[in-house]
């Protein structure tokens, strides 16, 4: 029982991060049909920038804010200078551009920062909470609470504001959105900026638990992507449920099967989901017209 609780708590923590990364994917995909493989680099940049700005003597909360701002600017630049000029290119070309961007950002991070692993002090520095025999890190609760807040804020924003409605319109039909006077280019700009910010926050949250380094982004991006895929790509609730499930599945397979193969589980799931229900848990089946 204690063990079970332990796995659930660690699974949910990691899962929340996957969910945030998956949400970032979803946002950009909805607005522009682009799968942004540099999503993991946003997470890395969030963590690394906070570490280094903090090390320069800036108080941590301010450093975290700066990190989010920097990452958001980079996300915006990624769209403006790399993705937007290639509008209308084939999916392979767009995938290669974002992959190129991810390799580029990793290379820059390696130069600007360094190649070592870094950590941050947890937000609440206290002993693990004992709960039913399981030890739960306070930072885990911080991660879960923050992820919940982000999801709710994002949902309120999309559902309740005019800009949010423009995002929905753009996602539904770009041409129609442009016809009713929505500047779809700015909407895509916006989606890149917000997903970069979400990624950065995820990076800052997870660093006290999981460490970060210049190349931490790749695996996180793939996991977040698996989460989005599992939930059904393009579905925001799907990304959240997918992320949490993936985190749990990973934690359980690491605990009960083999910790060496915990990473393999994520990808095995991607394959199985794609084979049996390509539209994911929450996605709608796509009907192709000729």
């Amino acid at each position: 029982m204690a063990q079970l609780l332990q796995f659930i708590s660690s699974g949910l923590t990691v899962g929340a991060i996957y969910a945030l990364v998956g949400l970032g994917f979803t946002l950009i995909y909805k607005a522009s049909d682009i799968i942004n493989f540099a999503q993991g680099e946003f997470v890395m940049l969030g963590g690394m920038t906070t570490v280094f700005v903090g090390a320069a003597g800036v108080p941590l909360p301010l450093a975290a804010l700066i990190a989010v701002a920097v990452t958001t600017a980079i996300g915006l630049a990624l769209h403006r200078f790399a993705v937007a000029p290639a509008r209308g290119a084939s999916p392979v070309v767009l995938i290669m551009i974002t992959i190129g961007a991810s390799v580029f950002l990793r290379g820059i991070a390696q130069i600007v920062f360094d190649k070592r692993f870094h950590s941050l002090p947890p937000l609440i520095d206290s002993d693990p909470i004992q709960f039913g025999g399981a030890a739960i890190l306070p930072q885990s609760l911080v991660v879960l609470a923050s992820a919940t807040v982000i999801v709710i804020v994002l949902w309120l924003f999309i559902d309740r504001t005019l800009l949010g409605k423009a995002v929905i319109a753009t996602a539904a039909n770009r041409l129609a959105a442009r016809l009713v006077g929505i500047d779809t280019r700015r909407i895509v700009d916006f989606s890149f900026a917000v997903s970069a910010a979400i990624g950065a926050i995820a990076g800052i949250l997870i660093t006290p638990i999981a460490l970060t380094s210049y190349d931490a982004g790749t695996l996180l991006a793939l996991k977040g992507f698996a989460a989005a895929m599992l939930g059904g790509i393009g579905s925001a609730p799907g990304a959240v449920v997918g992320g949490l499930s993936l985190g749990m599945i990973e934690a359980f397979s690491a605990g009960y099967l083999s910790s060496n193969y915990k990473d393999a589980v994520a990808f095995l799931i991607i394959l199985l989901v794609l084979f049996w229900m390509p539209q994911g848990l929450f996605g709608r089946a796509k009907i192709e017209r000729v």
Partner: protein
Amino acid sequence: MIALGIVIIVVPAFFPSAYYYRIGALVFIFALAVVGLNLLMGFAGQVSLGHAGFLGIGAYAVSVGPVHVGMPPWLSLLAGAIVSGVVAFVVGRPILRLAGHYLAVATLGFGLLIAIVLTNEATWTGGPDGMSVPALILFGWRVHGSVAWYWIAAATFMGGFLLALNLMDSPTGRALQAIHDSEIAARVLGIDVARQKLLIFVISAIYASVAGSYLALFNGLITPDVAGFLRSIELVAMVVLGGMGSIVGSLVGAAVLVVLPQILTVFQEYEQALLGLIVMVFMIFLRGGIVPSLVASFAGWRK
């Protein structure tokens, strides 16, 4: 075609040292894998972000075979190619039903699974540290050195190149190009789309596997990185850089991405950043790839 043969034979005359043969051999080895991938991407229009997985199968076949099973290297190379083909056949059936991003992700997941298995089965593969590969022995001749490998890789590449050209001119090739243009139209014409896609997937897997075996035999050492995500990306980048659907482009793309890092070692620190930048810039401004763009501008200039 003949021009290419002449280039392969003449260029080494200008190689000042064995180091250049080494680079040349690497170019041809990668070009072989890229030709295979180009058949899949450029002609059949199917993406694979996990092709390094097959590179890995081929590479580990020639090391695990001789070391653990006692098979001679050349037989292991064949065995690796067969295993890759069979794996591609089994996995390809469900994977190739997918399209676009989904296909990209499924192949990516598949490639990563292979890399993870290679990393974790340490008793067979030496784990993350990799293992050394015994030299290739052909008819009692122990193949070693960059010069020998240059010629072997070049000859094999030419073979693969010819095979690819002929394949594209065959009914299969035409069927594949029809699938590329419109899968539904191809189906309406009576083409067994699933079978043709599977066939080309298996063929491209075998190309990659042979290239992987060569790479391992040539380097004498392999690590699971050979099957990693970055390797897969590198292969796709080579295809797209050279030009999708251009077999000559495969050689050009491989040459650019093999030679470039060698030049960039001067800027060692900046290597990754520059590589990423180059991929981005090429994709934005030279979307069609180097060779097709050159051909197009040449045709325009002649008018």
